[in-house]
């Protein structure tokens, strides 16, 4: 696991309290969103379980003895949801998917990769995309399956690929 470089805010106690002052709050939330995205990107995760957030070093800074409460985390995640950078998985909003790129961006990235590798009009499995040798070094290598499918579905709507199911595996055909 790659080492995370904590931003200065991480060791600033007020960072763990949602600020009431509008301008301050905006800056704070922005910093949080950046931190969450960076952290998940580094650790190759895509989901956050609000209930278990306190076990995660991001939301629990033992050195300054501060924790981000679940309510505060929810505020941040909902803020991220507004800009399409996160979405709740369940109705009770306990588990959230966080996209370190928006789904559109992911889609474009996948499409560009396919085009540049001459994979248009051929079918490749999702497994290939996630784990294949071809994609090592690409950002979406090891991307969460659900996020990948969502990104591809968004691409499908635009008519630039087609999701195919065969056997118990899933594939995609880029146009």
């Amino acid at each position, binding site marked *: 696991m790659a080492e995370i470089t904590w931003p200065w805010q991480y060791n600033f106690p*007020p960072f763990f309290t949602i600020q009431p002052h509008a301008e301050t709050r905006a800056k704070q939330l922005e910093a949080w969103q950046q931190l969450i995205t960076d952290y998940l990107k580094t650790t190759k995760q895509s989901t956050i379980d609000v209930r278990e957030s306190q076990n995660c070093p991001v939301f629990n800074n033992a050195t300054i003895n501060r924790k981000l409460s679940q309510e505060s985390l929810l505020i941040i995640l909902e803020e991220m949801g507004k800009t399409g950078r996160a979405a709740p998985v369940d109705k009770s909003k306990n588990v959230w998917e966080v996209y370190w790129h928006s789904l559109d961006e992911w889609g474009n990235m996948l499409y560009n990769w396919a085009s540049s590798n001459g994979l248009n009009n051929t079918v490749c499995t999702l497994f290939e995309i996630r784990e294949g040798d071809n994609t090592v070094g690409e950002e979406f290598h090891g991307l969460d399956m659900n996020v990948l499918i969502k990104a591809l579905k968004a691409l499908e709507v635009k008519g630039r690929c087609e999701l195919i199911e065969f056997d118990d595996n899933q594939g995609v055909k880029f146009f």
Partner: protein
Amino acid sequence: MDRFEYIEARLFEGENYLKREKNVKIYDGEDKTQYVDGEVVLTSHRILWGKPGDIPKGLTCLSLPLYYVFCLEEESSGVFGLGGPKRIILHLGPALPGKRPGPAVVSPYHFVKFSFKDGIDPLFYKALSEAVNAKAWERSTPLTSPSSESAVTSTRPPVAPVNSKIRSGIVGIERSIEEQHRATDESISVAFQDLRKLMEKAKEMVSISKTISTKIREKQGDISEDDTVRFKSYLMSLGIDDPVTRDTFRSDSDYYVGLAQQISDMMVAVLMDCGGIMSLADVWCRVNRARGLELVSPEDLLNACKLLQSIGAPMSLRKFPSGACVLQLNSQRDEEVARSTSQLLEENGNLTPVKLSQLANVSVLLARERLYTTERLGLACRDESIEGLAFYPNLFLTKSS
């Protein structure tokens, strides 16, 4: 049963015959007694029980003084609810010392029952409860019996006070609470009488002190400079020499204006000492301390402070969003407060309201308001943790990420 007395069936002076009933049995609490099939006579003071025919003849009978009774009720009727209630329960107070001998010396019960073979006559019950409530024995002179036993009767202690004292049951509790209230009421009014007298004297005191001070001024030569100074300082600490009082104004609003003027005059210096801002509670204490005896109520003070702005005083009443009221010098602006507070924040790294109150020499309440003000202007940010609320310099806005 131990409250009954043997006595000849004669009416005392001032005692009135009320009602008669036949075929009456007495129960001592729940127990049956030998007193069955008797005749009962209710008077304004007592209940008499005798064998049929004994009472009219004036022979010895049982007597229960009504002052023992503090509560009576009809016993609910038998198992099958037939024929209506037959028994009256009389709840009794403790036996008094000096009681004449009766059929029982001690009884475990605090009630007796009269059982009526033919059912309770509603009129009898009504007359009984009226007689108990009327308390005829309290109004009349102490009972004197016409017989030779008068000596014994006169040694009986006054009945009324004991009657309303130690009682069992809810009635007893209620009565004792009522009595406590009355006592408190009395002591309060006594206390305030003294205070009123003190206040009446206040004006005189002030005028005396004034004449003394003018005398001193005239005879400057006789007394040493030191003495004069000391005496003057005593006089000063007496406070305002002519307190604005309600009596001197025709209407409340005039009074408030006068009071506001006075507050503004006396508080200017104080506010400057305290950093330009003071909670209204502190102001109230200061004002009343200075006035000495002509105290103002918090409400009057609040009303007067509301007028401060309209009379052009150099200070005004201010209510913080949290609801805290303060008196604030007009020169004390939010920006000023925020700037000085944020400076303190920079110097100390972080501040809790308590810490700031010590640093800036203001109350904790005001310190908290200052921090909130600073936060509102974006110069501080908060940190809520298990250790409480603390404030930090707002690095979110000042430090570029």
